[in-house]
């Protein structure tokens, strides 16, 4: 078939062309065709991705306030203040809570994906329940957990059942608030990692387990020598995504605490700097720093886990 077509096509096409009249596309016409299809997509890509990035870099070297027609260049001042002003840079440390949360989240996801990949009653029900939070609206999650963590709320009532009578202020106490928020984040995103891992484990050919059974392997050995190597790629990718996710946390702390009580994150700070304090120049520099960090992390990922993840997608 595929051998026949190319030999026949030109002959037929040539005889068809004159019959269809002068309006048939010429060679040059064909050459322009892909660009006609790409006109709108490329336009949007440039307009909403590349122009903003370029502008952001430009603004970051100015002291622009977002309104003034003149953008006063200030050199590296914005970058210097990001790294020297402790009130700006310290919010990066808040990411550490989410980073630890993300590691817990991956460990939980790996555990549940593994045990549910073995024969389990009601497996689909459990899978659905564990995954469902991931689908929920972020604002709904934020409000649900405000209710969960509030004084005399669900968590306190649950703890009272176990005899804890003097629970802390989960969101009001500076030393605890970030743990509560990171835990909410784990609740929200664990399901996605879990389903991704489960899918990867289930795509490992069954013969491997049978061979392992024949050799008398224990469950732990099966996990260590069959499952873990089989899902190395997806675990690595999730790890990297978790790191960049932890750096750009926004929705949960923004909805739940608005960044109060030492829970502000770098993105909340950037948005505030730009839109509340009208320091677009400084905010752009902050965004550029974050972008560079994410790019470096992605680059590390590409180096550490080179491209054979193609078949996973």
């Amino acid at each position, binding site marked *: 078939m595929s051998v026949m*077509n190319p030999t026949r*096509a030109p002959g*037929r*096409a040539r005889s068809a062309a004159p019959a269809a009249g002068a309006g048939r*596309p010429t060679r040059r016409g064909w050459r322009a*065709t*892909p660009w006609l*299809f*790409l006109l709108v*997509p490329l336009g*949007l890509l440039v*307009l*909403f*991705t*590349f122009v*903003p*990035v370029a*502008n*952001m870099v430009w603004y970051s070297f100015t002291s622009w306030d977002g309104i003034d027609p003149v953008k006063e260049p200030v050199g590296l001042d914005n970058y210097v203040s990001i790294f020297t002003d402790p009130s700006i840079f310290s919010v990066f440390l808040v990411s550490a809570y989410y980073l630890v949360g993300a590691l817990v989240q991956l460990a939980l996801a790996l555990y549940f994906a593994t045990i549910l990949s073995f024969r*389990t*009653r009601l497996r689909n029900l*459990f899978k659905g*329940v564990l*995954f*469902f939070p*991931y689908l929920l*609206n*972020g*604002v709904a999650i934020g409000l649900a957990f405000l*209710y969960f963590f509030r004084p*005399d709320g*669900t968590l306190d*009532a*649950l703890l009272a059942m176990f005899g804890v009578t003097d629970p802390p202020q989960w969101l009001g106490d500076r030393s605890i608030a970030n743990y509560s928020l990171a835990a909410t984040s784990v*609740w929200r995103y664990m*399901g*996605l990692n879990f*389903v*991704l891992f489960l*899918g990867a484990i289930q795509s490992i050919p069954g*013969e491997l*387990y*049978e*061979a392992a*059974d*024949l050799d008398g392997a224990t469950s732990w050995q099966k996990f260590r020598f069959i499952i873990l190597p089989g899902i190395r790629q997806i675990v690595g990718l999730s790890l990297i995504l978790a790191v960049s996710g932890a750096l*750009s946390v*926004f929705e949960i702390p923004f*909805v739940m605490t608005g960044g109060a009580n030492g829970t502000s994150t770098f*993105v909340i700070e950037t*948005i505030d700097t*730009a*839109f509340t304090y009208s320091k*677009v120049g400084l905010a752009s520099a902050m*965004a550029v720093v974050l*972008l560079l960090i994410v*790019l470096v992390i*992605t680059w590390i990922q590409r180096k550490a886990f080179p491209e054979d993840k193609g078949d*996973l*997608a």
Partner: protein
Amino acid sequence: MSTTDLGRVTPTATDRARLGLARLRRSAGPVTGTIGTVLKYASILVACACAVIPLVTLVFAAFKDAKEYNSTGPLDLPQDWTNVENFATAFTQGRMLEGFINTSIILVVALLGTIIIGTMTAYAVDRFDFRGRKVVMGGFLLATLVPAVTTQVATFQIINTLGLFNTRWAAIALFMGTDIIAIYIFLQFMKSIPRSLDEAAMIDGANRFTIYARIIFPLLRPAIATVVIVKGIAIYNEFYIPFLYMPARDLGVISTALFRFKGPFGSQWEVIAAGTLLIIVPTLIAFLLLQRHIYNGLTSGAVK
């Protein structure tokens, strides 16, 4: 292909023997069993409880009236499961109808746009050899590396300059213009559509646009379904873009409408709970109906 097939066919007998043996062992050896099994199910049940309790207590709260809410604990069941007053309050005073309408408009228009743009891009990139093809591909790939959340500071100025600020078009344009995952899903799928179909149509005198519209587009239907699901969930849940670009009260989408509950309903948690549930229920229904598609879609979408 054929060699691996052969490789599989020949040792069938031994395979079957192995399988049988393995099965024997598994049924004969539940020694590791009981304690392990108990721990396993216990851990699953604890996890499911953690997943469900924050949502179930919202349901309890939503059916209580103000007096009952104040006099009972969050784990107490409501007296009257038919009391839908809170839902009515949330829906009308919380302007949630408006939110659902705005979300639906944005959802439909942005999805149509994403599908048309995404399929056209995938068609152009996969089916044409042209100078600059590599650059175009590289451009789209590069864009996947830029987290949208970082560029809002500058995107805001563009939306403003275009006069889209405080219109639904701001959200629609951003949802359409920044979706690289959809393009990727279409591209993956397009590769599995044989080129001989295009060639056959060309012989019959079809031009490139006809091929796209009549042959490729209909065959992409499964990929379109995936994109509708993945993207639909993302748009339904999006908070940041409408919050930043459409602050006008009558342009509220469900996320921003719910976010505004924090002020006026302050401590009326029974109403906030009802409003939250109104947003969760459509997601739950969609999940129950489309489970398999959602799992597949998200796995192909998440691993860019």
